[in-house]
């Protein structure tokens, strides 16, 4: 079965390019535009009994930021799903915040497709 990834980012460019790369690599991708939307997507997956292999989320987002989003995910049945957070070089503290919230790893923007897939390989079982 296709692995399912939820990608949460407020930038349309990020969503488009990351989804493009993930779909190319054979993943099914659901997009969310911010933390709140992410929570809704997760809850609806929970209701429909869908599977979820990975969550990738930006930290700096309007409405609900990545840290808030992660802590919401940890309240659902997807709490053991690996989570990668996106940061930029200048935000080392963000990595820490994400990790404290329960993220599994991080990825610094901008990144190449190989780097994205390399990070995914670290936390998701190969197909």
């Amino acid at each position, binding site marked *: 079965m296709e692995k399912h990834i939820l990608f949460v980012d407020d930038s349309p460019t990020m969503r488009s390019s990351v989804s*493009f790369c993930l779909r190319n690599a054979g993943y099914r991708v659901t997009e969310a535009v911010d933390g709140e939307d992410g929570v809704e997507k997760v809850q609806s997956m929970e209701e429909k009994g869908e599977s979820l292999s990975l969550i990738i989320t930006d930290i700096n987002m309007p409405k609900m930021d990545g840290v808030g989003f992660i802590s919401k995910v940890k309240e659902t049945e997807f*709490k*053991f799903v690996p989570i990668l957070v996106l940061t930029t*070089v*200048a935000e*080392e*503290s963000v990595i820490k915040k994400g990790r404290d919230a329960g993220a599994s790893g991080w990825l610094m923007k901008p990144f190449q497709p190989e780097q994205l897939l390399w990070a995914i390989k670290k*936390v998701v079982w190969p197909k």
Partner: protein
Amino acid sequence: MSADDETLQIFFSETEELLKLAEESLLALESTPESASDIEQLFRSVHTLKSGAGMVGYTSISDYAHLVENLLERVRSGKLAVTKNLITLLLGSIDFIRSMVDSVSQGEAEADPEVLNERKDQIKRYLGIDGISSLEREEPEPPVKEAPKEPAQEFSFYKIDLKFRKEFFHSGQDPLLILLGLSELGEFVEVVPDLSELPDFEDFSMYDLYISWQIIIKTEMSYEAIEDVFMFVKDDNEIRIEDITERYREGIDIELAGKKLGEVLVEKGSITEEVLSDALKKQKMLGEILVEDGKIQPEDLEKVVAKQEESRAVYRKTTLRVDVEKIHSLVNLAEETGIGLSKVQALFEKYAGPGQMEITEEMENLVKVNQEFQERVARVRMFPLEGTFRRFQRMARDLALEQNKQIKVILTGLDTELDKEVIEHTTDPLKHLVRNCIDHGLETPEEREAKGKPPTGIIEFKAYQRAGKIFVEIRDDGKGIDFTGIQRKAIEKGWIEPDQVLSKEALLGFMFKPGFSTSSKVTEVSGRGVGMDVVKTQLDQLGGTIDTHTEKDKGTTFTLCLPLTSALMEVLHVMVRGISYLVPLQSVVGTEKFDNKLVKSFGARERVYPFRGDYLPLADMTKILDIGMPSANGNSTALVFIDTGRKAFGIPVDEVLKPQQIIVKTLEKNYRSVKGLAGATILGDGSVSLVLDLLGLEEIFFKNSFEGDANYENEEKAE
């Protein structure tokens, strides 16, 4: 990330939106320069634009936006004021970004390199970075490295200890994925899982991780490549990677030691499988049979046997795996021998007789030997500080880079060994101190040059052992601690009066008080928010101390003094109602004779007592430990004053005996954890005594009155 056309279209329309937002906020800032929400929106727009441009591969736009973002970061953190000039510059930057975006949307190059550099220099002047030399530093490090492919010369062997947190699975991690990633780098020579932490079935939780691993891997990859496998997990878990290639010197393969001679001979091509199995059937010494049968020359056999012997010797020397329980029992036995010795010593004193001088002398020698024995045994659990230091080296470097500071990190005393537990508990305090050095101590290259110092600052980590303690020093050659800043803050917090003159030591003390932080804003870069008080609390719990030495523009040295092992503790022996207790000495600030007349009642249940110009609350042990009637007027004859760092209070006791050094045994193992008690120990006379956990005690005793206390303090300030 290379992008398809659709992504590019999205990028263009998003960028247009972002540039518009940025412009709006800039114009709004022109009339209200302080507006935090506009600064935030401006920052976010540029930040998002930078990431987007990077993702679609427009590096010039991304680099330039990165510089603008840095500038805005300074505005956001209050380091740079919003002036008309700045707004003009920023509006120009926005226009420039827009012109680059327009160019690429028409399929042209982003910008003329010369113009771009000019534009960049303009911003750098505002940032205070001199032109070209810092260009490299501006380049973001490749964030996620691909596993480096370049082979090291020949093979290396690494020993990897993996001890993950019990809650490992909760952060979506999977140890097997990590082992899998590791296995791709080379060949596992040895994998030893440690199952000793596995609980009984009833206590087993399927969401917890109990297994740890030790792996020896043979690989062509570099140390960094191995470390990369643990990139996401190395900070929160105990991962030790050790290059053990050295131990394989002179080409001795320790694998040989574990193999049967026959296997080695077959591998070396000296005999064939058939010859081997024929020989084995004869059930004699394999070597003899082979020589007898003329299948192998005696010399050849000798060579291989010698090689194998050699290998076995090395193998025996290098690997000694001992169950940790064995070491604990050794520690216990050594300690009991010590107790026995003091008992005998006491008996000799009691039954004085002829020849006592000599006996006493011998006994004293024996006690000394035993002390050293105890120390050596404790040493078995010790690790060199190297790993910890290396981590901080990296951290210091990264932090400095983020702040455009230049540093050189010097590490000395890497071999200095510390108890595993002490190392674990020292990591956090050290982290704070390193942060402090870089954030507050170290100046930018420009500032340093203006002071006539070399542009590159120095941070030195140094560890050494002296008088049974381990010292860890963190020294920087930065600007030193700002005493007027501390004083100002202390006045602001109402800790001291504005005209009060205090010694430097007293001022430094404030730095470790909860709620203290000289920088008014927590910067995104350093990500602080917890103060240096954490350092002190953690060190107190360990029984360590911190000493600060600072000189203006010469730098600051923090010296941590740590116990060799976390189990040894200095305590004060006291008696309450005929029961003996041990009070951790490092929290004791003084003892005094108890005078009932000086006690003041405060509210219904709180009693206070004057101590060094303050009134401190009294914590009545008889109340909290439920050992009989509260001693209302009591038979207490003395008071022990405690300062846990969070709160100071006095404990009335019946008798203060002498301070001593003990090995604390936890109660969990034999009984269960009890709040207010850190553990127990057996005293020299063979009796058991309880060790107080002062932080726990403080919570039990004062938790209900904390709020009241706060009000009380406020009232006091208002007066």
